[in-house]
């Protein structure tokens, strides 16, 4: 260490102190959050330099609950100097209000690309749709979150939407997945197991998406046969066996590939019946998804969840019309 080094350090530290003092003096915004009142139900405070996530981490113990603070104070923003309330308990987890109740649309995609066909959405369309969700403050949630809402236990952000993709085409990995990563939007991909490594997604791709934490992989039958219809010449016992196989085999295959048991099931063609639902329950599956085009309320029956199909030959107006997040009475 040279002789003049301590004096240089002293000058540097003086400069830094002066910089922070000036910074604090110039700013009229409060630096720290000031608690104005508090009991077991609410914290009332004047916001400092923290955002909703930080406040949620501090007062609710979970930074992902920032939306709860934002929604409780709407239309007031969580900005420095604003007085806000933080509800310490979510007293209304089912989203019922005087004017109506909250609904959650589940969007259902299939293929991505430019080959054409109603079931195919181009990369540009998909990106435009995801950008719309982001710009208009929709919150893309996981099916897991929706499950809590359906149990009547877990409130959801007001403008919640779920994204799902059926079948397991490879374009999910090549086109949809990079876009979902770009927007940091979670999605659930339902694959039918005979298609895995056989024209559809490969094991390597499934594992990569699963490892990202953004994509949840769930079963969509074994062969993609219609589970609600008897095959031609199929006896009752053959039908029963087919239903068992179509539910059990893809679940096992996904479990062995990804190391965790699937929880949700999308019916091929969206068709089901009580027997199939019983099979889902017997296999520990918690949700069954159809393609009836409506959004879902908290009281929706979990084994007949509605989903709205997104077609490639429709415009943005049609997409926007499917984002119904509140049902008026």
């Amino acid at each position, binding site marked *: 260490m040279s002789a003049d080094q301590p004096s240089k350090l002293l000058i540097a530290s003086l400069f830094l102190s002066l910089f922070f003092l000036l910074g604090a003096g110039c700013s009229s915004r409060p630096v720290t959050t000031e608690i*104005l*009142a*508090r*009991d077991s*139900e*609410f914290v*009332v405070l004047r916001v400092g330099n923290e955002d909703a996530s930080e406040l949620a981490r501090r007062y609710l113990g979970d930074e992902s609950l920032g939306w709860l603070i934002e929604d409780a104070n709407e239309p007031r923003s969580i900005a420095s100097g604003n007085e806000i*309330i933080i509800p310490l308990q979510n*007293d*209304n*987890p*089912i*989203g*019922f*209000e*005087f004017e109506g*109740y909250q609904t959650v649309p589940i969007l259902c995609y*299939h293929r991505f690309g430019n080959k054409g*066909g*109603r*079931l195919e959405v181009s990369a540009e369309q998909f990106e435009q749709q995801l950008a719309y969700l982001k710009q208009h403050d929709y919150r893309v949630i996981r099916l897991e979150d929706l499950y809590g809402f359906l149990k*009547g236990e877990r409130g959801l952000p007001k403008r919640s939407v779920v994204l799902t993709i059926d*079948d397991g085409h490879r374009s999910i990995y090549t086109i949809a997945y990079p876009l979902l990563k770009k927007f940091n939007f979670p999605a659930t991909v339902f694959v039918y197991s005979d298609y895995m490594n056989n*024209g559809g997604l490969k094991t390597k791709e499934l594992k990569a998406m699963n490892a990202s934490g953004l994509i949840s992989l769930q079963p969509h039958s074994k*062969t*993609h*046969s*219609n589970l*609600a*219809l008897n*095959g*031609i*010449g199929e006896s009752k016992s053959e039908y029963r066996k087919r239903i068992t196989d179509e539910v059990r085999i893809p679940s096992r295959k996904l479990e062995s590939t990804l190391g965790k048991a699937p929880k949700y099931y999308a019916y*091929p*063609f*969206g*068709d*089901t*019946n*009580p027997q199939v639902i019983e099979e889902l329950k017997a296999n520990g599956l918690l949700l069954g998804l*159809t*393609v*009836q*085009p409506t959004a879902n*309320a*908290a*009281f*929706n*029956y979990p084994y*007949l969840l509605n989903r709205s*199909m997104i*077609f490639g*030959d429709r415009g943005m107006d049609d997409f926007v019309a499917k984002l119904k997040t509140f049902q008026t*009475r």
Partner: protein
Amino acid sequence: MLSAAKHEQKGDLYSALMEYRIARTVSVDTTKPGREVKRLEKLIAEKTDKLMSIAEKKYARGKLQSAEVLYFKILTLDPNYRAAFDRLRDINRKQLHKKMKQKVALSQRYRKSSLRKKNRQTEDEGYIYSRQAILQAENRANDVEGYIAELEKHITKYPSDTELKEMLVNVRIVQARASFGESDYDSSLDHLAAAEESLNNDDKFLKKLLAARKEFAKELYLLGLRSVRSEPVNAIELWKSALKFDPNDKRTQLRIDTFENRQAQ
């Protein structure tokens, strides 16, 4: 407090309760908000229990729709009223099962031969969803154009689906008839021409459209006949419109020629 009172006045007791609870948190020096909270909690409990008792009677009698309305009301007063929530789910389950039965019946109806190739499954999926989009559009009573657009898209993709071609012809003829009834003959013609364009390879449907054209032309011809003495100019207009529907109608052409010759003399 004011806000809470306004909510209560409107009947939104839950929001009023929330406001009083916040007021209770903020106003530690007064017991008034606390008293209001207790009063409202009691009021809500009384109201919800009363509504629940009526709803349960309706439910037991199988009057699910009116019971459903009451369960909704209970949950807007108290979103944590579990018994009402469970009943709503039960009603929803029944409704969804009913809808699903209808949907499966449609799938059954549209099912093709079991000999289809395995790799055509996703193509069939497109076919079924395409038809579902049509039904969805059909149910949107005010969106006939949307319904027609769905039919045309489907037929472009699945040109052998004669059942839906028939649906398209029928809806176009119905629309043509509606416009005709409003004396909007151009719009009526547009509907028929659009159907002919969509189905230009199918003689069976073209014949049906031709028959519709002839029928409209005949009606206009007769209308012209009725008004030829009192309003000859109008009659000529009607016959000219009739010829647009059926350019090969010699009878109408003869009437126009005769009238025009007389005018010329």
